[in-house]
């Protein structure tokens, strides 16, 4: 910031210049207009999907299987179950690894640690994993799992989604653990509790709701992912719960049906979109609910100025 810019304002344009006030007002209104224009697509998208999706929504739609082109009716039961299985497999891989990784970064990530390069690499890897295009993750899992098994499978899709979910879990675990006041940790250590027990029995329970929030947000992120599933889970028009077989999921079904030329399939895709968007919003709402009533908020309010050990 340079001083002469202010002198310029004050001297050249004059303190009493009424245009300055007018410009100030105009800027404010411009901001409001631009912001609401920027947000308007959300209203359009949600309105569009609710209107189009509700017309195809029914219990039969949710609980029946897809039918071939030309036949009326048909549902998305297999895709709903498939999404559930994929999310479960993804969580199975990424939650333990992610929570452990988050603890590791919080406990060993301090600056006075000899193993700093490893924590630095881990932190960098987590950040980079978050930025890698999802389609590239699809390619990698295709090479690792699909080529290894010889065919597309729900397992491969779950692993791809798990890799995508991992950074969210790691980061939220690390961040909530950091919010736990040092006095709690010190209190437990002063009682002679072994270190691993302090982490497992004191720190983790204290930040339970934050970790859960991270997992929910991670699931919300992957539930709508299509790109990594294109050549891992692949899609399946039949009902399947076998994780070694190809499986359908809601986003895959929407993609396949939306790009098809059939009116009836578009109708099903709108319904599936409504289900998917409802699921994702429900997840992020419940994540926010956990944050707002979790222990973390209370803890961080009580946070005293104790120095870290």
């Amino acid at each position, binding site marked *: 910031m340079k001083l002469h810019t202010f002198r310029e304002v*004050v001297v050249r344009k004059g303190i009493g210049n009424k245009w300055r006030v007018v410009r100030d007002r105009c800027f404010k209104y411009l*901001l409001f207009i631009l912001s609401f224009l920027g947000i308007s697509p959300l209203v359009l998208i949600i309105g569009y999907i609710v209107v189009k999706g509700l017309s195809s929504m029914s219990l039969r739609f949710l609980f029946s299987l897809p039918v071939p082109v030309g036949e009326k009716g048909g549902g998305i039961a297999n895709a709903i179950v498939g999404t559930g299985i994929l999310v479960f497999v993804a969580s199975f891989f990424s939650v333990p690894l992610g929570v452990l990784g988050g603890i*590791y970064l919080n406990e060993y990530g301090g600056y006075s640690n000899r193993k700093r390069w*490893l924590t630095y690499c881990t932190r960098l890897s987590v950040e980079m994993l978050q930025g890698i295009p*999802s389609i590239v993750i699809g390619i990698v899992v295709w090479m690792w799992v699909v080529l290894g098994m010889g065919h597309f499978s729900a397992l491969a899709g779950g692993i791809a989604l798990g890799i995508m979910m991992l950074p969210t879990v790691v980061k939220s675990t690390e961040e909530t653990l950091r919010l736990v006041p040092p006095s709690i940790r010190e209190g437990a250590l002063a009682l002679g509790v072994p270190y691993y027990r302090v982490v497992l029995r004191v720190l983790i329970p204290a930040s339970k709701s934050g970790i859960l929030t991270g997992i929910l947000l991670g699931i919300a992120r992957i539930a709508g992912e299509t790109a990594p599933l294109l050549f891992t889970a692949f899609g399946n028009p039949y009902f399947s719960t076998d994780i070694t077989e190809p499986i359908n999921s809601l986003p895959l079904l929407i993609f396949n049906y939306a790009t098809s030329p059939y009116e009836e399939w578009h109708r099903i895709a709108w319904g599936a979109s409504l289900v998917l968007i409802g699921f994702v919003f429900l997840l992020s709402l419940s994540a926010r609910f956990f944050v707002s009533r979790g222990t973390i908020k209370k803890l961080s309010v009580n946070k005293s100025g104790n120095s870290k050990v």
Partner: protein
Amino acid sequence: MSGKWKHEMKMKNNGKTNNSTKLKGWIFRVGLITSGCVIVLLLGGMFLSLLGEAFPAIKHNGFNFVTSTVWNPRSESYGAFSFIVGTILTSFIALVLSVPFALAISILLCEYLPEYQNGKIIGVFLRNATDLLAGVPSVIYGFWGLFFISPIVRYFEELLDLPAYGVSILAASIVLAIMILPYSASIGREVIAMVPEELKEAAYALGTTKYETIRRVTLRHSASGIVAGVILALGRAIGETMAVTMLIGNSNILPVNIFRLIFSPGNTMASVIANEFAEATGKLYLSSLIEIGVVLFVLSFVLNVIGKQVIRRFAL
């Protein structure tokens, strides 16, 4: 807790259990370090195996890969130039379209409707709406764009007397702009919130209006952070697959005329992988597609590192 206390006392009094405590602590530490290593190896392994699979194509294609526009699996010529152009063009237009809106939202939320004034309903609405916008799956953006954006684009194409495809680079860019808006807005908010309050107060004390303070203090101070945010948004835009695949029209041939280019169907690096990977036959074909994946990987890696470094330096 009283049960645990007794347990703890027992462990103190009994030498043997103390030994097993040590072992458990050791196992715990090793487990933590292993998980860190696994995450690092995951990223490293991803890059190495991509590079390994792409190697035959890198050897075969050479520099033709980035200079040639001919992508023809039958004649075994794999030039990705038109995909690279498509990616750059869509991300660039999307950025230009979304940055003013994202900046407006972040300034408004930080300076005019800050979080502690939670009573202001507009601020609450805007904050939640941006979060929800970030949560909409990309395939739904694509589906909506197919039925909402592409007819609008088609209408303009008819007006301008161009071949009316509807699906085009412009349509993909518009949807991409909507998709990266919440992401860049959240980074913008983060960066603008970091501007020290004292600087702004000093400006107000000199008699500046709010607009002048924002323009000459807040924005100038957070300029590098905002640039970093744009870089991170770019990194996200180049890797976005599904919505772009559905809207870009998937044509490997690009017209030379710049004006027509925007209104014509094209292909991005991500969309060509999405379209052709599952059907690709032949080792070289697959390998070339993976080479595109390597380029995407490296690009997003570099953009991410630069963006995060700039933001980190800004935060200090």
